[in-house]
């Protein structure tokens, strides 16, 4: 009995200390991790492991916040960006995010990368009421303001991209036989669902939907069977490594369908160069970011700002890797939310402001694309534009498409 009492006292001690600290904070309306001079933001990313090619995204984010801090921070507060490696392993993400929330006491967790990793912390973040903002994955499920009011996506979701491809095919090749390559997880199946839904009652145009595993060494056999199935449209939704393999293999076996490449795999540096630029000629893809290798942006102020940023704060980063565009653009959105928060930096207000973005433009998003959110709309970017690869770079064509389901 005596032992239990002593224990409970000991257990209560930290709580009592925390309580004592709260009044001082509450007077200024600060949440955890905020002071007059600092805002702590947490992040996880794959610096090692199977998805480490995306590790440059959090690195470019850290660089961006260094720049923000050099320019005086946000409303006078410096951003303290704490980023940990989760190796793309869900249990590790849980551990690292708990560390961020419970040990580092961050105000919010920004753009953790990956679908399985975000799924693992989804429930925890919403139970703890910690903002899980602008997750770096396009799964459709993040747009769920009712069920998960503390989680918000950012990029156009995979299903809406899939709708766009279906619309393009129906318009340009109505009698096509479609083959789809997709990753065997939420992310890949989201794309497949998007294409299937977008085709509507013509979904039987898909003659073959071939999955691959991230652990597969190659996707050669999938490509060979697509050719054998007589497909003349190839929707390639692989991540850069597999997208590149697929393009290369198709060229090797002289299969020449109309190729549609999903935005996850359309980086010139990470996918098309390894695939061979001549093999990638004529491929169609969709965009929401300015492709840094495209010379049409040479005199664009947003692009010039970005180059200046890269040169000064992230000189070792690859300027042809679109991940280095994604990171700073995510950060720009984050900074806007914090600006809107003013001195009311609680977790509740952060979510309110994140759901209150109107016509916000990010320098490296395509001209005309605006970020809009509302308490019932947790999908910040909804517009896309199509582009065609001419052997050197992506040439945009057509107008902005809103990637919503045809209803």
């Amino acid at each position: 009995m005596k032992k239990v009492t002593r224990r409970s006292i000991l257990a209560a001690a930290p709580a009592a200390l925390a309580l004592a600290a709260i009044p001082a904070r509450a007077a200024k309306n600060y949440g955890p991790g905020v002071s007059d001079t600092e805002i702590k933001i947490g992040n996880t990313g794959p610096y090692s492991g199977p998805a480490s090619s995306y590790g440059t995204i959090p690195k470019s984010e850290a660089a961006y916040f260094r720049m923000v801090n050099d320019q005086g921070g946000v409303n006078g507060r410096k951003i303290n960006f704490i980023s940990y490696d989760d190796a793309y392993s869900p249990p590790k993400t849980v551990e690292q995010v708990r560390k961020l929330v419970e040990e580092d006491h961050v105000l919010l967790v920004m753009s953790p990368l990956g679908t399985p990793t975000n799924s693992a912390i989804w429930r925890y973040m919403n139970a703890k009421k910690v903002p899980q903002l602008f997750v770096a994955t396009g799964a459709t499920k993040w747009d769920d303001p009712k069920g998960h009011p503390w989680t918000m996506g950012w990029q156009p979701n995979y299903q809406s991209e899939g709708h766009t491809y279906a619309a393009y095919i129906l318009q340009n090749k109505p009698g096509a036989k479609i083959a789809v390559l997709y990753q065997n997880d939420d992310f890949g199946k989201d794309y497949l669902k998007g294409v299937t839904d977008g085709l509507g009652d013509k979904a039987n145009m898909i003659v073959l939907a071939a999955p691959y595993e991230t652990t597969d060494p190659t996707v050669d056999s999938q490509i060979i069977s697509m050719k054998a199935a007589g497909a003349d449209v190839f929707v390639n939704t692989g991540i850069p490594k597999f997208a590149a393999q697929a393009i290369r293999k198709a060229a090797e076996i002289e299969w020449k369908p109309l190729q549609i490449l999903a935005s996850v795999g359309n980086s010139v540096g990470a996918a098309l160069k390894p695939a061979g630029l001549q093999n990638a000629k004529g491929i169609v893809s969709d965009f929401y970011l300015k492709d840094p290798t495209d010379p049409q942006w040479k005199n664009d102020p947003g692009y010039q700002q970005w180059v200046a940023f890269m040169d000064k704060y992230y000189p070792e980063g690859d300027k042809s890797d679109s991940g280095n565009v994604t990171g700073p653009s995510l950060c720009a959105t984050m900074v806007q939310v914090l600006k809107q928060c003013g001195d009311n930096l609680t977790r509740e207000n952060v979510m309110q402001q994140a759901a209150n973005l109107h016509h916000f433009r990010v320098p490296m998003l395509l001209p005309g694309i605006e970020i809009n959110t509302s308490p019932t709309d947790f999908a910040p970017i909804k517009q896309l534009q199509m582009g065609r690869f001419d052997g050197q770079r992506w040439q945009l064509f057509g107008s902005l498409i809103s990637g919503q389901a045809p209803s």
Partner: protein
Amino acid sequence: MNPPEPNTMALGEPAAVRPLAPRVAKADAHWRNRSNLAVGASVLAALTAPLFVQNFVVFQLTLVMIYGLAILGLNLLTGFNGQFSLGHSAFYGIGAYTAAIMMNQNIDYYWTLPCAGAVCFVVGFLFGLPALRLQGIYLALATFALAAAMPQILKFQPLEPLTGGVQGISLLKPDPPLGVPLNADQWLYYFTLAVLLLMLAGAASFVKSRSGRAIMAIRDHPIAAAAMGIDTALYKTLTFGLSALYTGVAGALGAIVIQFVGPDSFPFLLSVSFLVGLVVGGVGSIPGSLVGGVFVLFVPNLAERISTGLSGAIYGVILLIVIFAMPLGAAGFARWAATRLRFARNPATTGSVGRK
């Protein structure tokens, strides 16, 4: 013809051995007391630790125990029975999924542990049957196949209603029983600690039992063991099953504590982590398994703290240093350090042991 050895010994050295015997026995008793003291102190430290650290650290310590338990499972197989496995991530995953699926049906979390253990025992036993024909690296390869197949089996379409497919299963964290003045993390810590101590004691008594001696005999000399009348096939399969059971229970605990299972949570790399933990902790040492758990959880974090970009390389360097400094793992190192200490204190009694 070989002269019988005991005779030569008796003739050559009786004068030197006999007077020493009582003193050696006394020193051994002294050291046994010391090691009992160490075990007691560790248990006491484990019992009080969660009251002094933050919940996050409690959570990490819980994970250390869980990985330690999984490594203990591997240790029973590899350390004590000499069979290799690269497939323990699969058993860990099966245990985790058993727990998650049961908890999804609103079954209380503590019932999931015996079930996960039983399921893994059966799977391990069945897998052990054909695997018996394989030795050494060939067995390692067969178990590797199991580990490589597991994430895909978990994604298998017809199983989706159960496994949640690629989405995995999210779980609710169990609350402590009414009236226990602990938070959920602390409660899970003590729950895990209790399971761990129970299973540690079970493993220790198993290793000391007739069966334990039998499996070690099979490891050291299978032909001699068979000649002694040990049913090597039966014991090897049973060990495989038991090893899977331990790792499966660890997996179930892992699912409860992490609150999420997904196919990507149990990649082949996890098997390698267990193997690393096994070697670092000490092959064939029960407490060493826990050191392995510490290594598996904390060293990647340490490597990351040194350099985020080079964490993988730094992990490798740390691993090399550890293996170089402690070729027999933490357990071997502790034994070596103890003998050194004993020699320094009392060179006369243990001269011949202390030199190596």
